[in-house]
């Protein structure tokens, strides 16, 4: 059979099942007595087996079959859950995952050698108990018999009747099609979709039992019923459906006849099952009208018509969402432009209308942003397994706590945040948490605690990786940094402890004394930092020796539209994201003092270094342009503050962030650009790079 059209579906469903298999096995390991988990795992394995067999991937099918055997023994308590078994099953799952990915990349399925795993499984099975393992797999119809009762004959609400009547008046006919899929059919939803598609081409599908979204979610047993309005002959309809594979039976009935019978039956008040008309000669009991009238509420049937064409959810290509977001961005730019026109020309009517429009665009923006939001759990999900594996490898005892996995983040951030998080976690596991004996010696519990916590903080999402391990020794960091020539001894001596610890985020700094498999693969913390900063975020660390460390990642909720303060230096305009601004102050030249050759100002008793933006950015300046009156934008990065000296403050504005493109990628200090209301381009400053 032509499997290409199912490929995507196969891949996605396989991934889902693999994920849940992973979860299940992890839970099982923690609580081996949990039989419900076992059932779930079994179902996953079974579905995987079925899907891969249908798609012709025999390797996966064989391996899952072996997995099933052992799972069945576990399920029936013939053998006990052991670490070895879970380990082996997890390895199998990994192997399958690799195979599925390879298939997804258009490669062959046998990219990994699974003979070892298979042998091990077999050994475990035969070592486990004598009863033949073959029997259960085939017999278990593990894809839980659908909860739906046997599909019933059609009911026709008044609305349906109206529609059908109208159709008949205009010379069309309505058919009731009852489709039964073969018992062995695995991708039932795909089949039903194909049937629907085929019917859609012949005419208008006006209803189905069960409704379309249930069909999509496989909430039906092996048969379903559809009513369509068409000008085609019943024969054509039947052939069209029969052309789809894995269809066991198709029965086409003329709805007019059915309706007549229903009415007659109602009149007689007796459930006399009239023999089916010609095409329905082999009609099974379920098309008989007698079951129809009572069972389902007509109100539901009335709405079915609408629901039919749009399911509850749609999968949308992320690119389309990006385009949508861009368009909303354009709209915002133009709105701002209009607002300026309104202000310049004092057009009250325009301003008022724009206020209305402002509400709409704000809502639109929120909705689009919401659509792009994905719970961070999607990334967190893969970590328990990783932590478990690493813990074993390192012979440590570590407990991972995950909090706030429901916190939502923009899809693009989710895609990018996985690697930095993984790196931080690995660091905590490898360098943070001590060996159990060492922990005991320090008077700490043998089990180390590692936490992965996400939560909202204002307009940001904060993700923290915490551990109660050894902490980072600022002295060690100082010494290392001096050794590597990154800072001078003087600088090191004058550096506060927390600043010293932050040195780990500098490029070329890796404290790992020995390179291990877990961390220290040359990917340093600087990579973590640059990745997070490229997402508009910020990473910081708090640590105490022997008490542990907290790595705190702060990410903006949205990447696309932010509030910013526009400032002017000479003739150039720059935007500073509002999120990093503390306050703005107006000072004179005399307020600037020098400390150790660095210019500072004193703000509410705090000494703040200042940065003259014009000098940093080499802004061309004409003589005499400098003013005595200067504006300072006080920005903060974590705990640190700095004052950015600019010539003028223009005002706060909503800006749409645009990238500068590949040609200008990787520029320091500039993180992007935006188009202003007047059509000019202003660059967005990367505050963290300035400090």
């Amino acid at each position, binding site marked *: 059979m032509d499997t290409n059209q199912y490929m995507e579906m196969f891949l996605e469903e396989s991934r889902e099942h693999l994920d849940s298999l992973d979860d299940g096995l992890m839970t099982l390991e923690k609580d081996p007595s949990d039989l419900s988990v076992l059932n779930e795992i079994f179902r996953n394995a079974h579905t995987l087996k079925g899907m891969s067999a249908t798609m012709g991937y025999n390797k996966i099918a064989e391996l899952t079959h072996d997995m099933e055997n052992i799972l069945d023994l576990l399920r029936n308590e013939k053998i006990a859950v052991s670490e070895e078994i879970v380990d082996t099953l997890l390895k199998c799952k990994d192997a399958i995952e690799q195979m599925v990915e390879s298939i997804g990349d258009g490669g062959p399925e046998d990219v990994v050698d699974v003979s070892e795993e298979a042998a091990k499984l077999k050994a475990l099975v035969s070592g486990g108990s004598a009863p033949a393992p073959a029997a259960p797999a085939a017999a278990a119809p593990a894809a839980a018999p659908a909860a739906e009762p046997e599909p019933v004959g059609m009911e026709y609400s008044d609305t349906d009747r109206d529609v059908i009547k109208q159709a008949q008046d205009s010379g069309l006919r309505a058919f009731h099609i009852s489709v039964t899929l073969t018992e062995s059919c695995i991708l039932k939803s795909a089949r039903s979709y194909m049937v629907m598609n085929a019917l859609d081409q012949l005419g208008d599908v006006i209803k189905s039992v069960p409704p379309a979204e249930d069909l999509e979610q496989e909430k039906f047993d092996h048969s379903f019923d559809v009513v369509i309005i068409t000008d085609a002959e019943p024969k054509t309809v039947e052939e069209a459906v029969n052309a789809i594979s894995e269809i066991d039976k198709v029965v086409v009935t003329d709805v007019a006849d059915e309706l007549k019978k229903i009415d007659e039956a109602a009149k007689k008040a007796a459930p006399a099952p009239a023999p089916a008309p010609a095409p329905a000669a082999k009609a099974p009991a379920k098309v008989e009208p007698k079951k129809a009238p009572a069972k389902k509420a007509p109100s539901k049937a009335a709405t079915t018509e609408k629901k039919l064409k749009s399911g509850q959810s749609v999968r949308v290509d992320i690119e389309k969402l990006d385009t949508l977001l861009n368009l909303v*961005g354009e709209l915002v730019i133009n709105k701002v432009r209009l607002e300026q026109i309104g202000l310049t020309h004092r057009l009250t009517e325009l301003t008022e209308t724009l206020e209305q429009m402002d509400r709409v665009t704000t809502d639109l923006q929120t909705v689009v942003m919401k659509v792009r939001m994905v719970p961070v759990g999607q990334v967190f999900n893969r970590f328990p397994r990783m932590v478990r594996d690493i813990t074993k490898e390192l012979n440590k005892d570590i407990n991972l706590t995950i909090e706030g996995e429901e916190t939502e983040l923009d899809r693009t951030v989710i895609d990018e945040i996985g690697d930095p998080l993984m790196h931080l976690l690995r660091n905590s596991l490898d360098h943070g948490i001590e060996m159990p004996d060492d922990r005991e010696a320090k008077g700490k519990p043998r089990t180390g605690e590692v936490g992965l916590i996400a939560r909202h903080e204002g307009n940001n999402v904060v993700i923290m990786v915490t551990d109660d391990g050894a902490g980072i020794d600022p002295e060690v960091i100082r010494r290392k940094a001096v050794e590597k020539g990154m800072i001078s001894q003087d600088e090191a001596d004058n550096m506060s402890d927390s600043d010293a610890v932050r040195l780990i985020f500098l490029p070329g700094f890796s404290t790992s004394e020995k390179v291990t498999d877990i961390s220290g693969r040359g990917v340093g913390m600087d990579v973590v930092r640059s990745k997070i900063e490229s997402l508009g975020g910020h990473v910081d660390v708090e640590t105490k020796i022997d008490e542990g460390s907290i790595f705190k990642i702060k990410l903006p909720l949205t990447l696309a539209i932010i509030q910013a303060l526009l400032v002017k230096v000479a003739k150039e*305009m720059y935007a500073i994201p509002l999120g990093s601004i503390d306050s703005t102050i107006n000072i004179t030249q005399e307020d600037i003092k020098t400390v150790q050759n660095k210019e500072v100002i004193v703000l509410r008793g705090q000494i703040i270094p200042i940065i003259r933006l014009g000098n940093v950015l080499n802004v061309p300046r004409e003589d005499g342009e400098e003013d005595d009156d200067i504006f300072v934008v006080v920005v903060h990065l974590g705990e640190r503050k700095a004052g950015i000296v600019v010539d003028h403050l223009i005002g706060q504005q909503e800006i749409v962030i645009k990238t500068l*493109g590949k040609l200008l990628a990787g520029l320091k200090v500039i993180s992007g650009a935006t188009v202003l209301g007047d*059509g000019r381009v202003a660059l967005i400053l990367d505050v963290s790079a300035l400090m």
Partner: protein
Amino acid sequence: MAKAEVAPIQGEVQVVAFKLRDEEYGFDILNVKEIKGLTDITRVPFALDYIKGVINLRGSVLPVIDLKKRLGLQNTEYTADTRIVIVKSDDIEVGMIVDAVTEVITLDAEHIDASKVVDNESNRFIRGIGKENDRLIIMLNLEEIIGLQDEAK
């Protein structure tokens, strides 16, 4: 990619011809997206010297290359004829500042001399020299000019 030989020009090519100082240059018309009058260019600090800045092209931000600077030619003042030619190579779109756009002409491949006539540092930017009657049109190698592979780092 950049180092691979540039595909030889075959058959007829349509060329957007433009002026830099007194010489005439050309881009393959298939690379040219549009031609735009001079607009506000925002300077980008820390960018390479031949990148003049960025412009707003209907809501998106586009880098602009000072083509004369890129080719090592002497600078001239902008005039009313100065144009920005928006070109696209692979998926990179950039603007090129030129002194004037002259016309779109069709050159026969036979009239394009692909051997490197001009021997200096900047000849890697040149694909060939087209002859049309008395005019010489220097065909430029867009990929090299955008130079993403080597210098942009």
